[in-house]
């Protein structure tokens, strides 16, 4: 299955891009996606192992199951206001 991974702020700099599609096996969780992302290259390994994540615009735990077409945003600690 394919999900779209989105990155913001410091994580966008770490990953070298705002968004890209990721191929995952069926039954993959958020945690599996993060593991895969962190392994992309040396720079990406700096991504935390358990960042906040929003799937389809709702914050999720790392054990959340992903399905084809999900939008998964990797969320740095927020600092608005």
């Amino acid at each position: 299955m394919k999900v779209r991974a989105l990155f913001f702020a410091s994580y966008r700099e770490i990953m070298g891009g705002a968004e890209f599609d990721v191929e995952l096996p069926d039954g993959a969780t958020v945690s599996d996606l993060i593991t895969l992302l962190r392994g992309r290259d040396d720079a990406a390994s700096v991504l935390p192992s358990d960042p906040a994540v929003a799937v389809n615009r709702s914050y999720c735990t790392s054990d959340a199951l992903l399905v084809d077409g999900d939008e998964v945003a990797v969320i740095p600690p927020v600092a608005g206001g």
Partner: protein
Amino acid sequence: MMSRAEITTEVIDPHALLAHVEDPASGAVVLFLGVVRNHHEGRAVQAMRYDAYDEMAQDSLEEILAEAQERFGVRHLCAVHRVGELGIGEVSVAIAVASAHRADAYEASRYVIEEIKVRLPVWKKEHFEDGTSEWVAGHKPEASAEGGA
């Protein structure tokens, strides 16, 4: 009763927010403005950049306003968060609350800004006078027990 939440790149006009919430049954109107200040932890700040996960931030801000309305029984609320490059003294966030009486308005306004700080998907990068820039270390938002719907 209506709520209005917006993420914008435009300069925030506080009067527009006040006009949005005013109503003859409201005896109290509370306006909060978050303003870019010129210092952070002892360092001189020149400017600030705000980024947002726009679609989620819009939804999240509306949710926060709806929660505030539910909890505090206020009549009208609206909130606007600006993104992009902001200079010192510019308004980054504005919240307006109107209610029959002031106690609820104060509490609702406080609630909204505190929730923004812990869960709105917005980030800020400080441009220091020494030429360096850093993303502000923020707050890790909490996941709900069920999500991804």
